[in-house]
């Protein structure tokens, strides 16, 4: 089944925190254009794995390779500039800026790179970037709130805005860390709809999720993590039928 182009390859990654073996022997291949979910019980190492991929944590050994480039050892901003964006478990947004500016900033990062001493223009004259940001806010259904301070948004809206901030960069790989954590059923469903909508854009996604409803409605492929190891790997149907997974995880939660 791995006939697609592998865009993200986690090769033999180990991560130790003192005596704790948080990640062991992780091998993961994510195909281009697919949605790959990583599930597992609390403390299985899901967030650690995501932090290793995005450069927030350095692995004890092993490598993360994105489209032929080794990510290990690079800084978060360099990894982003390669085309990887991330949605956090607790939305990381610019709370003191307007919603529109929140979405314009990542668009400027894509256009201007990691640093530009851009003092001679005014924000008003950035009409192309502004139009693009407004278009993106329309896509996620937040255009009516564009002049609000981001910090005063509801949790669901913060998440949607953060997603817009990532999507406007047209990343090749989008990492989502529990995108529906702490959301109401209604907000969860809107988020699923939104994620399904962007699925058609051919972007590769790695999603960490607790909620089985979310995982089975979105994922093309699922890896199950338990105690720092991948215990199963496959399509949603294969994983659902795997007795090891039932025992470790699905038994109680589903």
């Amino acid at each position, binding site marked *: 089944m791995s006939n697609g182009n592998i865009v993200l390859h986690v090769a033999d990654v180990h991560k130790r925190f003192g005596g704790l073996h948080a990640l062991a022997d992780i091998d993961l291949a994510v195909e281009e254009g697919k949605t790959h979910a990583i599930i597992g019980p609390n403390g299985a190492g899901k967030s650690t794995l995501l932090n290793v991929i995005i450069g927030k944590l350095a692995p004890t050994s092993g490598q993360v390779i994105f489209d032929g480039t080794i990510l290990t050892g690079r800084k978060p*901003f360099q990894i*982003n500039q390669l085309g990887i964006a991330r949605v956090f478990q607790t939305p990381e947004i610019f709370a003191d800026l307007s919603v529109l500016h929140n979405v*314009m900033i*990542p668009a400027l990062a894509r256009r201007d790179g990691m640093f530009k001493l851009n003092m001679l223009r005014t924000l008003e004259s950035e009409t192309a970037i502004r139009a693009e940001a407004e278009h993106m806010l329309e896509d996620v259904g937040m255009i009516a709130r564009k002049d609000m*301070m981001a910090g005063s948004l509801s949790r669901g809206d913060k998440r949607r805005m953060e997603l817009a901030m990532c999507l406007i960069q047209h990343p090749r790989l989008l990492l989502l860390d529990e995108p529906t954590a702490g959301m109401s059923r209604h907000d969860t469903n809107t988020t699923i709809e939104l994620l399904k909508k962007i699925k058609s854009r051919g972007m590769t996604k790695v999603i960490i999720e607790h909620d089985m409803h979310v995982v089975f409605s979105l994922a093309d492929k699922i890896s199950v993590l338990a105690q720092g190891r991948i215990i199963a790997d496959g399509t949603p149907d294969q994983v659902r039928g795997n007795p090891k997974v039932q025992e470790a995880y699905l038994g109680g939660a589903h």
Partner: protein
Amino acid sequence: MNANLMSRNDLVLLLGFSLVVLTMPIWLAPLGAGYPDLLQRFMIYGIFAVGFNILFGLTGYLSFGHAAFFGVGSYTAVWSLKLLTLDAIPAMVLAVIISGIFALIIGFLCLRRSGIYFSILTLAFAQMSYNLAYSVLTPITNGETGLQLTLSDPRVIDAAVGHSFVGQPIPTLFGTPIGGYAGFYFCAAFLIIAFFVAQRIAGSPFGMMLKAIKSNQTRMQFTGFNTRPYALSAFVISGMYAGLAGALLAVTDPLAGAERMQWTASGEVVLMTILGGVGTLVGPVIGAWIIKYFENILSALNDNILARFFDVLPDGVDSFLVKVIGKFVGDGWHLTLGLVFVIIVIFLPGGIMEGVRRIAAAFRNRGSTPRTSNQTQAAE
């Protein structure tokens, strides 16, 4: 005006600000502050505070060492007046360049840390600079006596073009001595330019990045920005502002002493910015004016003046008032400043500009229906 240069609101603000500044000799006269010496200081510390706000207010890095750049600007200016020419322009240009280089080095080292560690590093570097200026570098700074102009200074450019002076050397602008009201308007022009540049920075994409760094540095990094060069640029720009202010102080009063680099001077600009309103454009200038006003007006008051003022009151009451208020004026003016500062920070955490905004909002709400959205103007 062209949207590429400035938005309409910014232009109105700039014109209003210029008008207020240029008419200061008129409207400050009844308040007892209409004399050129003090007016010049209003301009100079206004520039210092506007620049400091670019680092502290926009970017969110609290420096406790900006007096070092102020002092470097002063020393550079005096040396230019001594060695090159009595004209003020080369002195100011050199001061801005040298303080910018100095800020680049110190900023590069201090910005390896953020938060309180950054603040402590800046404080340490500034105190080192102060001690160097006070003792080790005496040949350059003339130690505790202070660096001043003398008749025997070489002034090579003036000598080359055959300019000669009679009497005490005074800095000039194209041959006209800078003193009194001429000095005030000279400084006022720089304050208006400094304000304009700060407006442009705050309203540019670069300014938005600085605000974003203050708001969420993690998100900035995961959005693909290298935040350190942004913070370093803000540090250098504000260091150059401080150097410009220091140079103006040296040009209007050509004596540079080490005490203007001390930590109390660094702390003063922090107070100015917080008092007026962190992150606003006008606030830091107002803060600077209020502190300099108190410093000059309150410290000049003494018990005799107070006794004359309260003369109309019955005996006993007047001497009691003189005794109490006397503690808060003269040498005790810091007590008043501290009191005002505490009151502002407790009741108006956004400084005086927040008070202005609240009053404006109250008026607006009385006139029309209350607004439900909580929009905030980016910078006023």
